């Protein structure tokens, strides 16, 4: 019998998240972010957080909500360009920020979940990102050593999930969610549709339930679009 990972709601799912913890949050921009859990973190008022997330939301949505509340001490991200409050806090020194290349960020999360402590990559060699990092030449080309990332809690968002924690993502809302799911000591998955075991095709599972400790169906999803772009019919 498959294990049951279901919790009632975001409140139950976020139990145990306390001040000073390191969190991973899935999503690219506002696409595929765990909206319900972020709202719960705002409600909990936990602070001094280290958040690992590709972006920091926008000023009034996504992780931007935690930034406005000054709940985040440090961000580990690759791109923060859509958030003025983020840029202000970073330039004023209120917020510690570690900017790392997007591919290195993804691989560092994957490595963290896969038991690989570090790896070499060419990305960032000869730039600020490479400063202080070990350099080795492979195939005649310099590479820098990047270390794995893990988190006390990883919070991801999927399209569908079953009670055993198996997850299926939709379109480009997948992004960082599968790697982060692997790298959390406790991984929370919030899903748009929670189904009984047996209702998802095992061939189609993107994240196997072994990586998920808690799963719940989100109350609602705003799914705000950052750059609505259309063409004439």
């Amino acid at each position, binding site marked *: 019998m498959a294990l049951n990972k279901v919790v009632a709601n975001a409140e139950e799912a976020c139990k145990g998240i306390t001040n000073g913890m390191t969190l991973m949050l899935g999503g690219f921009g*506002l696409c595929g972010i765990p909206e319900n859990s972020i709202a719960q973190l705002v409600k909990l008022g936990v602070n001094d957080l280290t958040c690992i997330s590709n972006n920091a939301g926008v000023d009034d949505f996504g992780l931007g909500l935690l930034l406005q509340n000054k709940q985040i001490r440090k961000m580990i991200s690759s791109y923060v360009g859509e958030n003025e409050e983020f840029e202000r806090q970073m330039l004023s020194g209120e917020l510690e920020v570690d900017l790392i290349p997007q591919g290195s960020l993804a691989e560092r999360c994957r490595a963290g979940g896969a038991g690989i402590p570090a790896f070499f990559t060419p990305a960032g060699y000869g730039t600020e990102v490479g400063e202080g990092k070990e350099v080795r030449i492979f195939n005649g080309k310099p590479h820098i050593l990047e270390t794995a990332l893990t988190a006390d809690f990883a919070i991801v968002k999927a399209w569908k999930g079953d009670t055993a924690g198996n997850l299926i993502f939709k379109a480009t809302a997948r992004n960082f969610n599968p790697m982060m799911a692997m790298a959390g000591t406790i991984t929370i998955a919030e899903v748009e549709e929670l189904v009984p075991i047996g209702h998802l095709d095992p061939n189609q599972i*993107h994240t196997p339930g072994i990586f998920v400790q808690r799963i719940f169906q989100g109350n609602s999803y705003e799914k705000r679009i950052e750059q609505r772009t259309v063409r004439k019919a």
Partner: protein
Amino acid sequence: MLDKNGIARRIAQELQDGYYVNLGIGIPTLVANYIPQGIDVEFQSENGILGMGPFPVEGSEDPDLINAGKQTITALPGAAYFDSAMSFAMIRGRHVQLTVLGAMEVSQNGDIANWKIPGKMVKGMGGAMDLVASAENIIVAMMHTNKAGESKILPACTLPLTGVGCVKKVVTELAVLEIKDGAFHLLERAPGVSVEQIIAATAGKLVVPDVVPEMNLVD
């Protein structure tokens, strides 16, 4: 002199049949509008799609389907979605044949800076550092000078670098430049632009051949 669409149109001529291509934010995105007749290419967006199609018709936008610039997009038949680690495996593993991206500065040895102005602007590098560190063929699409009229084509970059010795070609509103042997080589002039104008707008070492053809933008 070219406008942004003209720059994109010239870069589109570099596309070859069968290429997988990653287009950066800004002018590079426009390249998709000018794919030459008879050429099949597939666009990769590093947030997790191969086979990116045009923007959606109004009313059919899907918030779960965006490009790396966070714009709503569509997926073409034969498209594939994947996670960020796999996306950068494609990039780092050199499965993407051409990368087109914007820049704030490019130097004569192929260095590029496009992610940070210390003390003023920090947007982050996003996927740019991974892309420039691994791509075999990198074309920079940008304006020749900044808003203050200063050259962005330099002996050495003044801003924090995104990558070293990686840019092969630069297409601006004035010219097509190839970077090799520590210099910019003037390959083509934009329509109506003189060699003197290009020399005046270029701060880095520029090699000018006796004859510099004008770009042919006819399809």
